[in-house]
């Protein structure tokens, strides 16, 4: 059995979490690994709970859902209330402190990062909060390489938004860098 990493990205519909999940899964393939991405969301275009899950494994991946993530991103209070308890022991939680005020106690490493606030204030677009989160997550977990992540990101965004997205990714990376030291 190859190494198995399971991620859950959770928050509110409209935060771009499914796209973020797709980009990570894509980056993992660019890194030469096998990955699978699934999602669960409500019928609303915006609002409502939303989550994306990614499994990275070198072997055949059967069950495509994640029961106990070893990396959990929570970008709303509701998501953190709902999913914190699922964290695999010794896993990593990245919480967007812009929206998560009380993270339940977990048996793992916790990173409280101002993801949405940074996107809003330093990039000028909260829309790229998902990309800030991707940068932070990649730096903290080492789950995908920065090169693959950048390539995957640039292949899945609208033309003309490259600089905006690169900047968001870098801010997330730097934010994590600071938190790690």
């Amino acid at each position, binding site marked *: 059995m190859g190494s198995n990493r399971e991620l859950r990205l959770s928050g509110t519909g409209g935060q771009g979490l499914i796209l973020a999940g797709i980009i990570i899964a894509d980056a993992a393939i660019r890194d030469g690994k096998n990955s699978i*991405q699934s999602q669960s969301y409500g019928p609303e275009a915006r609002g409502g709970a939303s989550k994306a899950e990614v499994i990275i494994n070198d072997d055949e991946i059967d069950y495509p859902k994640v029961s106990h993530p070893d990396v959990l991103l929570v970008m709303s209070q509701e998501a953190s209330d709902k999913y914190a308890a699922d964290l695999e022991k010794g896993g990593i939680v990245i919480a967007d402190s812009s929206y998560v005020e009380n993270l339940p106690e977990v048996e793992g490493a916790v990173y409280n990062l101002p993801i949405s606030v940074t996107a809003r204030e330093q990039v000028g677009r909260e829309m790229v909060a998902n990309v800030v989160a991707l940068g932070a997550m990649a730096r903290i977990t080492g789950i995908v390489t920065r090169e693959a992540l950048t390539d995957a990101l640039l292949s899945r965004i609208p033309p003309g938004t490259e600089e905006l997205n690169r900047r968001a990714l870098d801010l997330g990376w730097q934010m994590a860098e600071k938190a790690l030291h």
Partner: protein
Amino acid sequence: MSNVLEMGRLMQGNEAVAEGALAAGVRFFAGYPITPSTEIAEIMSNKLPQVGGKFIQMEDEIASIAAIIGASLAGLKSLTATSGPGFSLMQENLGFAAMAEVPCVIVNVQRSGPSTGMPTAPAQGDVMQSRWGTHGDHPVIVLSPSSVREAYDLAVKSVNLAEEYRVPVILLLDEVVGHLREKVVLPAQEQIDVLNRQGPETPPESFIPYTSGAKGVPPMANFGDGYRHHVTGLAHDETGAPNNSPVVAEELIHRLHNKISDNLADIIIDDSRFLDDAEIIVLAYGSTARSARHAVKEARRQGLKAGLYRPLTLWPFPEQKVLEIAKKAKTIIVPEMNMGQYRLEVERVVGKHCQVKGVNRVHGELIKPGEIYDTILEVV
């Protein structure tokens, strides 16, 4: 980027259906977008014009299936995609396609029902509807993939079977497979076996539209090719003209069924794991088969004699194979995201040869491997 393509790329199930249909030669799509099938329409609307095809967004699903039947009669390989509520609306014309022998493919990405149910949640509640949704005795072929690559392969197969046997083919996905993204390596176009409908070998003046040809399938003349061709949902004789004769009607209905039942080896596709010495067999399809495979592997690790049988062709039902495994097994477990629709058919076929047990969830989430594994432990 070429190295990325060789290594495989991340693709969604619905996207794979669209790509497979295009590779098999589909050049017409009419549909009405509905979650969780919308990506198929979206991709077709983008790609069909690039290959000289046509895309029409219709006013509803009744019109959508009517349009693909019309396009198919005019000679184009045709596709529509929908989910439960739309599939219900399509039933009348699905029967028309079966009766008039019009090749077409209907994709149904199942969501939780009945009625509008939970639009974004998976289910497998349309298994019996896909077989019996339209009225009257009619033949139908239903294929159900478990992975993104299989969604591609079965889309190709659906188009081929529709053309070869002149039947509506239903490609039955569930929301999990439709929305799942995974790494796939697709075959090159030249590696794909593309089948086309058999055209008439006689000149227009001696053409009789519904005379049985190879495999019981009448050669098909396309509208506009100069052949007289009457199409009706009424019982009809070989000329296509309505006919109320009991003899003619019975012959027709038998021929419609025989063209499927005489060619089962060509139509039924399946897959299995660890069947040789298996005493407990999990029979599963669609996304549920992925949970089943996980559970069976775990059971094997624990030294249990468990196996997996996975029909990719749901209808016609793989009777012979199921009976064969039932004779060797003690128990067949049938997990489904419905109340036990396919299990009923398994029970009918296996009779007293072995025990049949369902694992049934209707809560809008994929059945977990643990739920199937626990049932394996229960029956050991």
